[in-house]
């Protein structure tokens, strides 16, 4: 089974040289730590920055320079600043190659729910609805089951949707799965020490298993 770092490391392998990538809050943020140093990858922060750098050293924080999670960050040589309309313009126009975000539920046809639990305090969707509606390639980083032990990979989402037919790939602590265009979670890889049976038991939506399923390399 993978921990959060493991999930981030596995997702980092999906990033290609030259990609512009938007990372969501939580596990996706950790992915930045595992992008190979010899790759040119530019991180987009939707509050208006391309070329997001690491956290500043203590004493060098700049209140005018934050990421979409409102954390103090730095810029890199070649960074660019722009306003919020242009930021979502480049997202809508599919200039961003890959979006990585968390989810509460994903359905077998690629619907995603990650912004609202009815009856609880609602914080809002932020930029998630814009990102999932437009991104060409969306990878979801999440736990396979929720805190109550229920599967988050479902035939249909039960929570209010963030977007429909959009998720392409899911990486959990148990497995890597593709969401097929015709519907269904196709099992691609098992986490170290996890059996196909364990993945089956944790997946309520349609799971497609073809041939031997390799253990993932991290």
């Amino acid at each position, binding site marked *: 089974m993978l921990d959060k770092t493991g999930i981030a490391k596995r997702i980092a392998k999906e990033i290609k040289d030259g990609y512009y990538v938007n990372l969501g809050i939580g596990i996706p943020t950790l992915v930045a730590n595992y992008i190979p140093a010899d790759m040119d990858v530019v991180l987009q922060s*939707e509050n208006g920055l391309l070329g997001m750098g690491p956290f500043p*050293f203590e004493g060098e924080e700049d209140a005018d320079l*934050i990421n979409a999670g409102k954390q*103090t960050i730095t810029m890199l040589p070649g960074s660019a600043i722009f306003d919020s309309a242009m930021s979502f313009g480049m997202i809508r126009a599919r200039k961003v190659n890959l979006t990585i975000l968390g989810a509460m539920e994903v359905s077998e046809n690629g619907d995603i729910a990650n912004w609202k639990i009815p009856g609880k305090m609602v914080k809002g969707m932020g930029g998630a609805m814009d990102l999932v509606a437009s991104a060409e390639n969306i990878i979801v980083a999440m736990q396979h089951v929720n805190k109550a032990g229920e599967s988050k990979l479902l035939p249909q989402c039960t929570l209010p949707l963030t977007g429909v037919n959009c998720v392409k790939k899911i990486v959990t602590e148990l497995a890597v799965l593709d969401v097929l265009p015709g519907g269904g979670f196709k099992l691609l890889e098992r986490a170290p020490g996890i059996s196909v049976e364990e993945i089956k038991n944790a997946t309520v939506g349609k799971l497609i298993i073809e041939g031997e399923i390799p253990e993932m390399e991290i």
Partner: protein
Amino acid sequence: MNKVFKNADDAIHDVTDRMTLLLGGFGLCGLPENCITAIVKKGVSELTCISNNAGVDDFGIGLMLKQRQVKKMIASYVGENAEFERQLLSGELEVELIPQGTLATRCMAAGYGMPAIFTPAGIGTEVAIGKEVRSFNGKDYLMEMAFDADFAIVKAWKGDTMGNLIYRATARNFNPVMAMAGKITIAEVEELVEPGELDPDQIHTPGIYVHRIFEGVDYEKRIEQRTVAPPKLSPEARS
């Protein structure tokens, strides 16, 4: 043409009850701090505020919420604010949550003189309820209307007396698009200079969009999430 006002109190003198305000900023970054303080002092109420966030309990729009000055909040993300949560759950505050890109682009549309935009954000979700859907090249889009706000209140780094504005780093965020979208736009700047002192090639908001400008004072520029890297190790410490 005189756009220069003495301070925030003067610049917002005609903001009155039940008006709609666009307020720049993302989180606590790039907030028109002086104008917010002046609006709190003036005590106007039943405002509709359009801003990406609602501040925190004791900073930003949170200060206006605390004084019960806000009737309706239109935002994309409103976490991190206990008073906001209390007013929402008690029904005192009306809240409309909209996608962040939709928020930005509805401002842009107003500033570009376009009545509406089409965006795929929210298709198939509760955001789409009651809205017109149009299909272009086989993909569905929601029609979202340009904002119609009485005032846009923004914060820039530098400005000149003609109203030209330059923002700094990610404090730019919603400020330029909101500056374009108000019937009356008020800009507060950290440094107000004479015409000719700003390079025309570097202007982010042309002064035609800005009706009032003043040099703000005492910027707190609070940091919401102070995150730092591990300390730099000296070569000796490394070995």
